């Protein structure tokens, strides 16, 4: 078991954003979390990687690093691509001792090749397109060989071809690292092409859990509304509530 979330609760002010969410993700498996904007999807990722703490509930993850690919890449502006990718290797004492500078250089080149961006070590994030930045953030995330990889809307704002490329990398990384992955997304292609299982959140609760095929079958009224992008159904936008 790589990630196990039990009865998670998180409240911001008066609003209960996560309300008793539970799920499991095995090694080598990808779980997609879908739902309205503001339904608590990104909060779950932040809870798993420890950026915020739950009010109650339990999160159990395998030993080893947790990596996160941020929605807007979150690359360090002042560092070039090579230093971005090697950031943890340079800044963490145990990793700095483990690798020589030459080895770090080789690791950076290898990770860049893995995401199809060979030879851009000396470029700065501002010189890259959105899709390239996203791929560099993939390379940075996997440099510590994590056991858990979290993706926060990895294909948001990208053109369909770049999205397909990113989706392929998610699958490829899962196959190569056997990590447990959680993908937060709105995009149907990302759900169907990358996920083994899907959960849908509404009002902080899980309203659907199943495979992407089961989701597309639209037996559930929530998934039906989501897939049809319909205004009619059990889900109401937050402003309407």
């Amino acid at each position: 078991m790589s990630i196990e979330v039990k009865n998670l609760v998180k409240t911001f002010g008066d609003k209960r954003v996560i309300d008793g969410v539970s799920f499991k993700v095995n090694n080598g498996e990808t779980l997609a979390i879908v739902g309205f904007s503001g339904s608590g999807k990104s909060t779950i990722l932040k809870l798993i990687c420890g950026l915020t703490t739950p009010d109650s509930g339990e999160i159990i993850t395998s030993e080893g690093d947790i990596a996160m690919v941020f929605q807007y890449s979150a690359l360090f502006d002042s560092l070039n691509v090579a230093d971005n990718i090697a950031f943890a290797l340079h800044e963490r004492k145990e990793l700095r001792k483990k690798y020589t500078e030459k080895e770090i250089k080789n690791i950076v080149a290898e990770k860049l090749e893995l995401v199809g961006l060979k030879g851009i070590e000396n470029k700065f994030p501002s010189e890259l397109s959105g899709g390239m930045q996203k791929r560099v953030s993939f390379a940075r995330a996997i440099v510590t060989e994590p056991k858990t990889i979290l993706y926060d809307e990895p294909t948001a704002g990208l053109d369909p071809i770049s999205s397909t490329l990113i989706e392929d990398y998610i699958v490829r990384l899962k196959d190569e690292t056997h990590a447990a992955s959680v993908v937060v997304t709105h995009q149907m292609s990302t759900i169907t092409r990358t996920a083994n299982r899907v959960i849908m959140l509404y009002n902080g609760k899980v309203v659907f859990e199943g495979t992407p095929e089961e989701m597309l079958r639209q037996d559930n009224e929530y998934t039906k509304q989501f897939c049809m992008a319909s205004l009619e159904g059990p889900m109401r936008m937050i402003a309407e509530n």
Partner: protein
Amino acid sequence: MDYSLKKYYKQSATYKIFSGIFTYSAAIISTLGDISLNAVEVAKCILKGQIDRRELIEQCNRFGISSLPITLSIVGMTSVIVASQVALEMVKQGGGNFVGLLMTMLIVREVGVIMSGFAIISMIGSSLASEIATMRVTEQIDAIKVLKVNPIRYLFVPRVLSGLIMMPPVVAIAAAVGVIAGAITANLTSGLGYLAFFDSAWLGIYMKDLSVCMLKAATFGAVIALISCSCGYAAHGGAKGVGEATTKAVVWSFVAIVILDMFFAMVFFF
């Protein structure tokens, strides 16, 4: 209290005044708490020797070399203003022999360090705050945490240390420029000779003045960097949050160095 009474009470001017004072006080206490906690964490990292030398050199260059032109200009011009106001009048009143003493004492004890502090705040402090605030709102600080790197060690330690190390030499150079500018201005406005100016300049300067000046400079440098980093680190929201954090860093740094200056004056010169 029934609902309508409560509503009426909340709309009253008294309630609004006290509620505003409470909110403002809570924000001040919260900021002071954040700065203190960050200071403790920075001290811990420094004592453990967790210092990124590459980043420290880069920040020292930013704090010292980049800020030098503006600092020298401000201290030099302040000195010109003061000398042009007092030199002629003192010479007229028969106090020409004390112009150098007055100018040097003023620059070494106060003007050099406080004006350098203001210049550093406006140039370096604001840039530190906006840089870190931008990192906060673009999730770069979250990325640092997820990569299991201590953001205080990575962001604060080199910046605070660079302030501590670089501010004294910057102030020393600025004070020297200020004294020379004062001598030239006194000569031009009142015809006071350079020899007379510098002869009296030495009379008013003691080792204690120089030591306190350097101690003040180091303290101001570290405090400006700490406050600027803390305000940037606590930023939230988007571009507005970055702007608010930068303004807050500048205001807090100005107030802090004036309070510290008063403290130094009370401890060392009362």
